[in-house]
């Protein structure tokens, strides 16, 4: 349960933050607008991940998907670098 809660709360935040940041980075619209949309919608992504992390019974799957999304998105961002 502790591992699941940690993945859900900390990992979910990291995954939501990295994923929406990646969307903000690659969205083909104005930079400032893309940034604000990502910030605004991030909490819904986080909420979705939180609920799913407690709903899905297979812990390995929860851990893999959430940390995979976090590190995958963060890795892409690191390769892309800031736009401006």
């Amino acid at each position: 349960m502790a591992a699941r809660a940690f993945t859900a709360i900390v990992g979910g935040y990291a995954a939501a933050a990295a994923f929406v940041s990646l969307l903000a980075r690659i969205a083909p619209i104005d930079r400032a607008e893309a940034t604000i949309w990502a910030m605004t919608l991030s909490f819904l992504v986080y909420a979705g991940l939180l609920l799913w992390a407690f709903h899905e019974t297979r812990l390995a799957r929860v851990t893999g998907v959430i940390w995979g999304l976090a590190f995958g998105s963060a890795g892409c961002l690191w390769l892309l670098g800031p736009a401006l």
Partner: protein
Amino acid sequence: MSKAASNAATGVRQSMAWIHGWLGLLAGWILFAMFLTGTASYFRPEITRWMQPEMDLRPVTAATAADTAVAHLQKVAPTAEQWFIYLPDARTTATRIFIRERPNPDPNAKPAPRRDELRLDPATGEEVTARDTRGGEHFYRFHFQLQIPHPWGRWLAGLCAMAMLTAIISGVITHKRIFVDFFTLRWSKGQRSWLDAHNASAVIALPFHAMIAYTGLITLVAMYMPWPIQANYKDPATFEKAVFGAEPDAEASGRLAALTPVAPLIARASQEWGGGAPATMVVRYPNDAAATVTLFQNSRDRLNARGGSIVFSGVDGRRLSTSPPPGPAAETSGVMLGLHMGSFAGPVLRWTYFLLGLAGTAMVGTGLMLWTVKRKRPGAAPFFGIRLAERLNVGAIACLPAGMAAFLLANRLLPATLPARGDIEVSIMFWVWFGLAALACVRPIRRAWTETLAIAAAAFLALPLVNALTTDRGFVRSFANGDWLFAAFDLAMLATGALLGFAAWRTTQKSSRPARKPRTAPRGASALREAVDAH
């Protein structure tokens, strides 16, 4: 629906009910406090005015207030680095000013002490002297900083807001009969009643609850979720410039130049904003050849709380720059901010906001009660977790209101000239709140409820009386003089006291009733929850 699909739906509802229960419990006590103090904050300026009864200022136009404030500042700080002038409106009658001194050029000199914010009579520009108090600002700050050192209070509040958003989504999924529950409230049926009350308070104001949790997160989004800015910009200042416009950053020239009259600038800004009024005026390097005057639009007459800003030259009044028009995303986030704070709301909508906030407080409170009530098994001694939750429920639901009333009572009873009395008022709220909660722990649980609720009720009922005895704005006189703020405040305190008194009376009633067995097998969501709880 096929059997497999129906099983999957039941599985989702079960896990969502489980998450809903635990999230609600763990964040519930803090959320209750955030909801209650946040609801009171819809009357932030009114509470401040009530807490300074000796101050009774007449409203003037923004231009007059700006002129008198500038005249005052020219006398006391003509060579400051920046003047911040917060202009009054119909609700906040005083002008607030804040002076930032120029840094001492000698790098070894001690930095000048931070000057206090001052309040001026907008008609004369004279400093107003009234009792020191945090006023409504205290409830407002507490509701997102929780009196915990920066930044931890805001992070904890954010975590609880996130829990609430998630609990609302899972609560809706758990719920099968959302429309029916709107009309269902069965009194005096133990757990059933708490479930009905929780459902009713949640469902009636569901759009409000969802909105307030989500938009609450948006108010501090730059702190909670700055990562998209990092992903796009090397320097976050570039983002701020793109969204809010460039702030003046020229250095002082060192040449003297008289400051331009500010009233015409306000008239021009108001024209540019289609009649909108400025809320804040920032003068940078007054009386210098590089002086600028920046006007920020108020959020009273618009849904988007992030108004525009215009920078004027402080020497000849030329318009130098303006904030860019917001794009769809900036507009959306500004409107979300406005919806949370409700500064655009007139009296009727403001009271509606207040009542919806109370419904949210009730939703959290009844949810907390439900958690303990449904886990108690008849005949069995409750285990430690339940007893702890019960005590924390008393501490949040009954003792916080008592603390809030004590804060208001302290405002009337402490001597007006007592040093640091504003801080003492705040300490009194927490001593009463936590002290009462600690005392309640040594009483049997039922007695603890009755006694703490009765104390809270008595404290609120005492407020109009104490106000009448310690000020010249008691109910009879304020009613006769048409002083509606004070009259309404007294009535609101009486209503709050009556509500708490009714709650205290209910706790004495129930103990005499025999425990009832449910006559019919529980159905729907509650059967599900019980099945889940049995694990």
